[in-house]
């Protein structure tokens, strides 16, 4: 086939420009819904441009025209052959009350696995501190946890001044950012076929179990509950959900029981992972506020019973939210069920 290039470009240019205009509109207006005639025209322009690309590929010169056509065909191909739901406007309230809990429930088995790994870590930490109390510096390498629990409680209850006065907001923000980073890290470690995520969850469990047993053995159970429950009942589930997301990533990588190719498996879960990690962020912002403004204050400033009751109410609400919110409503994305 001999192509008169000058005529070829002159003839094709109006169609290419029209296709480019339609693509620009589609990409800049996510909510745009084309009518049937518009769709037919779009498809016709795509096919014509693809045919032009096929023609020009056989020519030795005109690299710019070829690259321009390749770019157009690539963009149009992405629009035409995309089978995932088109992203629409984001409604934060709907996302929080519906999408997040639905996504959590859809992958609840990964959450149970995350809980089981953390509980195993708790058991290990608790048993280790019971049988070898001298191992405390190894199990909890944080200076504020190494102190004798009874001595710490006595100091906290005697304190007459607010030791966080003047930097409560900073403390709160540091807690939030630190915990969110740890959560993202726990999720990202899913790319190590889950090994990193499991280590993170297990180690968190070890510290939690060791601290709990240390305070219980010292007869400070009430203080422990009053100290940890207000923020812990949100913070710990948040880390567990991050672990759930990391394990989902790992399961998709391993692909056990699925015949779908790796790319498809990862594509199926990426939206859900993002939903979960944003949910974790929201929970940790709340936990950071509570930890800085409530958890650090003990009797006689705030009675332990009040703090424990607050924590219990939070736990019930969170459980109800994750278990019930958005039930009976159609899920937004068509991701696979576990």
């Amino acid at each position, binding site marked *: 086939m*001999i192509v008169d290039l000058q005529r070829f470009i002159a003839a094709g240019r109006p169609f290419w420009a029209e296709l480019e205009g339609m693509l620009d509109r589609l990409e800049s207006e996510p909510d745009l819904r084309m009518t049937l005639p518009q769709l037919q025209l779009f498809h016709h322009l795509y096919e014509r441009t*693809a045919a032009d690309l096929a023609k020009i590929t056989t020519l030795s010169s005109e690299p710019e025209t070829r*690259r321009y056509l390749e770019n157009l065909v690539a963009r149009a191909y992405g629009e035409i052959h995309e089978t995932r739901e088109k*992203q629409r406007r984001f409604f934060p309230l709907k996302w929080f009350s519906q999408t997040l809990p639905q996504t959590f429930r859809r992958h609840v088995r990964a959450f149970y696995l995350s809980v089981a790994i953390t509980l195993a870590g708790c058991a290990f930490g608790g048993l280790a501190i019971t049988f070898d109390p001298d191992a405390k510096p190894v199990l909890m390498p944080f200076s504020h946890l190494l102190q004798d629990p009874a001595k710490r409680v006595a100091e906290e209850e005697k304190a007459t001044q607010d030791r966080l006065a003047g930097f409560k907001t*900073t403390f709160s*923000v540091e807690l939030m950012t630190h915990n*969110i980073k740890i959560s993202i890290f726990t999720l990202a470690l899913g*790319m190590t076929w889950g090994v990193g995520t499991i280590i993170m969850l297990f180690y968190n469990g070890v510290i939690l179990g060791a601290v709990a047993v240390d305070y219980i053995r010292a007869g400070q159970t009430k203080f422990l509950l009053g100290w940890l429950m207000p923020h812990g009942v949100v913070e710990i589930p948040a880390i567990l959900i991050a672990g759930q997301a990391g394990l989902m990533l790992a399961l998709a990588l391993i692909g056990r029981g699925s015949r779908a190719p790796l*790319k498809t498996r990862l594509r199926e879960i990426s939206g859900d992972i993002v939903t979960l990690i944003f949910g974790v962020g929201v929970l940790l912002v709340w936990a950071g506020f509570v930890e800085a403004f409530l958890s650090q204050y003990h009797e006689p400033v705030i009675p332990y019973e009040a703090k424990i009751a607050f924590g219990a109410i939070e736990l019930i609400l969170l459980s109800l939210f994750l278990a019930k919110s958005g039930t009976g409503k159609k899920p937004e994305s068509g991701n696979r069920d576990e």
Partner: protein
Amino acid sequence: MKTSTLFIRTPEGIVFSQLLAGPVTRFFAWFIDQLCISAAMSVLGIVLNLLELINSNFAIALYVISYFVISIGYGIFFEWAWRGQTIGKKLLRLRVVDVEGMRLQFNQIVVRNLLRFVDALPAFYFAGGLTCWLNPQCQRLGDLAANTVVIRNPRVAEPDLDQLLAGKYNSLRQYPHLAARLRQRVSAPEADVALQALLRREEFDPVARVELFGDLAAHFRTKVEFPAEATDGVADEQYLRNVVDVLYRTRGVTQTEKTAAA
């Protein structure tokens, strides 16, 4: 097999290619982005210094949270707003695209950016760099999880054909139908070899130069047979110039001629 090009075949049978960006180019883009983040934080620091005079606690908290949001959100925001590009990528003409040519989704951008945490392990993006180097499509771990690749769109430099070919009579142009056939039969790599040989002709040893142009001219003579009056007495190097002129100046108008006409 490691390749620098991503080929996508559409169901219609059309193949289009995207040039993949290598780890070094991507590192430079990342470095520019880090400079942008540092610059943004410096400006914010100056503003918050003033706020610190009013409320130190609030100013520090705002700085901590801003650093967190900017360092994590920078890539997500720009790649979403600029369809796969950050400032660094834009400057180096790189772009994040879906590995199968589909529309790049917000989820993919978030996943590839959050997984930087593991790509950065143990330091200086070692895990990500190593994966990128070993992966056939130059993907880091974040790209693998998000099904994305980073492509490059190099500026296509037009050779200075006027300087190379101006003022020479081209006997092949007397036969437009054969010239058109030559354009159709010569592949892009073949045309490029001929052009590069002419552009670098002064670099060759005189004997090697005669030999090379002899071989190339013989190769192109087999593509289309021009009448003897068009080729007789034409040296191999001149024949190759004529071929390149036909291949690259398809419209038959040189820049010099355009300028003269203007």
